[in-house]
């Protein structure tokens, strides 16, 4: 139909997994080829969709504005950075009240710190305030997608699972635990509400 490149899916991953996705790669030598982060449960992610609680925003720029936001999900914290090249996201962070639920569409980025460790962060395409129902739906959906990846992790011919195994090792049990905790958390929170409320 169209020769336009197909749009990249926004993957769903909890912070616990996303922050471990230190390995990035391209599928071709073309300079403009999309950059992917390799998720430890065996999937490539050029884009992610995240919903969580924006707890803090801070302008950490020296010469020009450079905003950092902390977006918290049940398993950890996503670090979102927006500067002059993401003007809409930067102004969203500048104007945002905290805490509040936000949805972030963005690209995974990595950078190496002075001590040699790799930090994974999110370069936002958009940041918008959302309600609790949206956040809850995201938690369940992200658990579901993560579970699907775990399910397929040992499948024959699962290219990205093989790469993940080579880069990060065999043990994906922390991600299964994280998703269980996220869901149980949620279950308890629901149970706290009296039945007649």
């Amino acid at each position, binding site marked *: *139909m*169209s020769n336009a490149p*197909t*749009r*990249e*899916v*926004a*993957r*769903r991953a909890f912070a616990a997994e996303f922050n471990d996705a230190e390995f990035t790669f391209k599928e071709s030598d073309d300079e403009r080829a999309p950059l992917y982060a390799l998720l430890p449960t065996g999937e490539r992610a050029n*884009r992610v*969709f995240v*919903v969580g609680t924006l707890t803090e925003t801070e302008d950490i720029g020296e010469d020009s504005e450079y905003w950092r936001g902390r977006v918290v999900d049940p398993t950890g914290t996503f670090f979102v950075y927006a500067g002059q090249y993401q003007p809409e996201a930067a102004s969203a962070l500048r104007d945002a009240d905290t805490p509040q639920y*936000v*949805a*972030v*569409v963005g690209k995974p980025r990595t950078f190496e710190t002075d001590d040699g460790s790799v930090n994974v962060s999110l370069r936002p*395409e*958009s940041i*918008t*305030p*959302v*309600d609790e*129902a*949206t956040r*809850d*739906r*995201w*938690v*369940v*959906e*992200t*658990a*579901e*997608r993560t*579970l699907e990846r*775990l*399910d397929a992790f040992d499948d024959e011919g699962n290219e990205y699972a093989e790469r993940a195994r080579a880069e990060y090792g065999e043990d994906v049990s922390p991600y*299964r635990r994280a*998703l*269980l905790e996220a*869901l*149980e958390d*949620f*279950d308890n929170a629901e149970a706290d509400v009296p039945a007649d409320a």
Partner: protein
Amino acid sequence: MSDLSDTAAEIHDEFSEHVDATVDDVEARLQKLVSEYKVPLDEARRSVENHYLDEAGLDRDDLAGGGGNETVQVEDVDEPEQWVDLTAKVVELWEPRSDSVGQVGLLGDPTGTIKFTKWAKSDLEELREGQTYRLGNVVTDEYEGRYSVKLNRTTSIQAVDEEFDVGDNEDEVEGALVDIQSGSGLIKRCPEEDCTRVLQNGRCSEHGEVEGEFDLRIKGVLDDGGDVHEVIFDEEATEALTGIGLEEAKQMAKDALDTTVVADEMRETVLGRYYRVTGPTFGRYVLANDTEQLDGPADPEAVLIKARSM
């Protein structure tokens, strides 16, 4: 059979619906050119065809499909400028927006529905709503990924007694609305008859600088973490989705002296939320007929059970 009589038969087929001539008539004309005047056969063919085109009052383009059209169903139409035959019911007749259009509306068969246009100058019989017709020699067309068929003066229309349920080629897609693309919000369309192209900086790609007409539209992306669906919301669907109607959007743009504030406001309201959209798929787009926000309580049980069993 000689090349000459083959050619004569082919020409006869092309014109059988339009001209009252026998194969022998055609062959005699060819023969005369080829034998008497030493005209090469392909040139002779051209000349004879032109003669009959004149006689029938047709343009060469009208013949493009010739006699052997493919008989298609609505869902098969996926390419513009194809000459096809179609059996379909007139589902709806719409008000023509221009004098050059005789009739316009929706045709349907068991596989789906498709827009049709019948030109006023084609001088064809009136189609009746609810009646099924066998339509010979219609041309397919495409606009923004959306297909239609055009009836022209070579189209044959025959009412037939066929009853079927018209298929709703509707799809249901859901996911988070992760992007609102450029060309969304308050837009201007070309006011030229039957054009409706979206203007870029006050210019239509076909008609140049024009005084545009305001419209509302969202080109959005629904993403469920596995698949991506591009969705178009028309004016009505955009208002249902965002709560912003055309008049309000115009006022917003007027107050801000800037039309982009409308899309910005819409992004703020809908990006990052979950929706279920139903509507027909045209090309790469789902056209939103019905939109529902998925804001009910999420249910972790099913996933939890599965996760525990692993």
